[in-house]
């Protein structure tokens, strides 16, 4: 029987790892993710999780040890955030290139400088070109569920890519919410044993992994990572469907909220989706035609789903906690890619907000709405807007 209890997202992530039964875990403490390895240490110390937990000396070694273990053919897990994820950067490409389905929990946190431990998505968004699958959780239950789903997708032979699951620093990592811990037997059925055909370190059948590729082969190797990302689109849908069947909770790459007849749709990810849904309710009461959409899957980028969403609205208002300097947010670029050659397309407005733990309030969203309404009325508008800036200290 599933257990209904309350816990923080960090604990939910540790529980997900425990349920997935990784053989090797390597992790390094970093705020706000530290509780994940702490909790896993307890599980291992109590014999509740039969795994080797390598207490590495850096995040770089955490991911490197995971690559080594995954290359040796076992299920692996790690958790990090922010600077720790940035320190892993080069190895993230390697994990994807070597096609190792490592799963990593990210307590989404800002990047220095200035140093700041609070929430935005700059850390994992900055890793969007590494080849890793990316999922973002709205709440603690999703953090747990998406880690299980991430294993399912990552280890699928049509995919074989590493995956990260992000959940917002403090807003989720340190906030206690009701969570249902699924039944171990059902999780075992859902995930199965991990027995890779392509990655092993076995003296009885020696293989070479991590070769040098000359220009004659490099592009094809990178193309297979592209192909695997493409394959993941279908595999994710299948995994969502199977998960819903087994555990009763429904996931979609893009989850919509009151989007029918909406003129403006606010699009976001992570815990901000909760705030935005509240805000949509608040506006709907006033008769304003708005809706919300949440990206649960960010990589592979759900292009078809974005196109379907775009057909519903006159304005897509992208609320994002990240920035690509001189361009805008990452979602703005991705949405532009998805819609650029569509015959009919909505206006896209980008909002950068909530960086480094800045609260996103209804007042901020009013500001965003006002710009979207200007655009809707055919007035001039800024494409990229920093919302909630304290102009008095600039």
């Amino acid at each position: 029987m599933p257990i209904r209890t309350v816990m923080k997202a960090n604990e939910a992530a540790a529980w997900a790892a425990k349920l997935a039964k990784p053989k090797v875990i390597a992790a390094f403490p970093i705020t706000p993710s530290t509780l994940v390895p702490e909790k896993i240490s307890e599980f291992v110390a109590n014999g509740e999780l039969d795994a080797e937990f390598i207490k590495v000396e850096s995040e770089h070694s955490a991911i490197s040890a995971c690559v080594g273990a995954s290359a040796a053919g076992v299920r692996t897990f790690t958790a990090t955030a922010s600077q720790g994820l940035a320190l892993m950067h080069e190895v993230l490409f390697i994990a994807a290139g070597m096609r190792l389905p490592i799963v990593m929990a990210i307590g989404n946190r800002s990047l220095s400088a200035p140093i700041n431990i609070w929430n935005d998505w700059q850390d994992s968004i900055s890793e969007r070109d590494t080849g890793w699958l990316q999922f973002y959780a709205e709440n603690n239950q999703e953090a747990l569920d998406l880690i299980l789903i991430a294993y399912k997708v990552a280890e699928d032979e049509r995919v074989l890519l590493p995956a990260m699951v992000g959940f917002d620093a403090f807003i989720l990592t340190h906030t206690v919410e009701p969570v249902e811990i699924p039944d171990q037997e059902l999780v075992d059925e859902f995930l199965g044993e991990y027995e890779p055909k392509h990655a092993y370190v076995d003296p009885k059948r020696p293989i070479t992994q991590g070769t040098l590729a000359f220009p004659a082969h490099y592009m094809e190797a990178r193309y297979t990572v592209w192909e695997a990302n493409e394959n993941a689109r279908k595999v994710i849908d299948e995994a969502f469907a199977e998960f819903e069947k087994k555990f009763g909770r429904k996931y979609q790459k893009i989850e919509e909220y009151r989007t029918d007849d909406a003129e403006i749709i606010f699009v976001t990810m992570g815990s901000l989706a909760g705030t935005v849904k509240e805000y949509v309710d608040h506006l709907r009461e006033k008769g304003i035609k708005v809706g919300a959409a949440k990206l649960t899957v960010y990589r592979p980028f759900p292009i078809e789903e974005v196109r379907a969403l775009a057909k519903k609205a006159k304005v897509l208002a992208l609320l994002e906690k990240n920035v690509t300097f001189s361009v805008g947010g990452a979602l703005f670029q991705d949405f532009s890619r998805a819609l650029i050659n569509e015959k009919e397309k909505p206006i896209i407005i980008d909002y950068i907000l909530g960086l480094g733990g800045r609260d996103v309030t209804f007042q901020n969203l009013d500001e965003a709405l006002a710009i979207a309404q200007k655009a809707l009325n055919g007035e001039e508008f800024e494409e990229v807007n920093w919302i909630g800036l304290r102009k008095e200290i600039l």
Partner: protein
Amino acid sequence: MVVRKPPITTREYWAPGHAACAGCGCATALKLATKAFSEAMEEKYGDPNAFAIAQATGCMEVVSAVFPYTAWKVPWVHVAFENAAAAASGIEAAWKKKGLKGKILAIGGDGGTADIGLQALSGMLERRHNVVYLMYDNEAYMNTGIQRSSSTPYGAWTTTSPPGKYSIGEDKPKKWVALIAAAHQIPYVATASIGNPFDFVRKMKKAAKVDGPAFVQVHCTCPTGWKSPLEKGVEIARLAIETGVWPLFEIENGDFHNIKIQSPGGGAKVKREGGKVVAIEFKKPIEEYLKLQGRFKHLFKQPEAIDQLREQIKAMWKVLGVEVTLPKPEE
């Protein structure tokens, strides 16, 4: 007919056809190291193949695994430059969970070990993984084209330590990673050289057989980077031992008071007290070693620099608890 047993197994794990330079001392080291490992695994586990390699980016990595070819007849994983020790930790942990018997061999050059990989090495040693780390020390970043590392010896020319009006060449003493490794109080640390293959093989076997981590730093000639004759690799490496430039020693469990020193040969007089080597009087001047290498050519115009190098070598031996006298060449 008497068939003599070969001094080391004829099994090969490092196949010919790899792309190392002619006369590469590191290639010799890897060939011997894998053979030694195989013998050790056979003796310890009854399975000569019970090992796998995690290797850092570097010369020996790029020459041995050019897709779609491989020189490796043993499971082999390369991840990146600075993380061979961390990757080896992961493989070792996976083997534990899979119940596989054997040992992991991590391999890195001096750049990948003394510099960029030092942190990962320290972590792996401190965590007591069942891994042997082999540092093939050719004393510079050779793969990128001969840049100085912290393991480059004093006075050596490299592309980033060129001698000039204001430069003697490399101006810092060599960093001895073996001593740093020993400070982790791990079961076994040794220096070795391709100039004494029997000693190297013995040490690799010992390293492979201990339970827990071990570290071996092997001196390898690099004709390309040292500007030395291709055919004199072993001779040069041997001269490094015989002149005192390259001490051969073993440190067990970080016991710096009981360092085992191997006799350097070359006519050197070794003085022992209570079984311990306390002094060595070398007979061959270091110039005999230096003069065969273009990287030290400029030093012969500045004899005071060679004297400085002599002082540094003495200081290193002093750390090992040995007073050495290093002769000057006869005028």
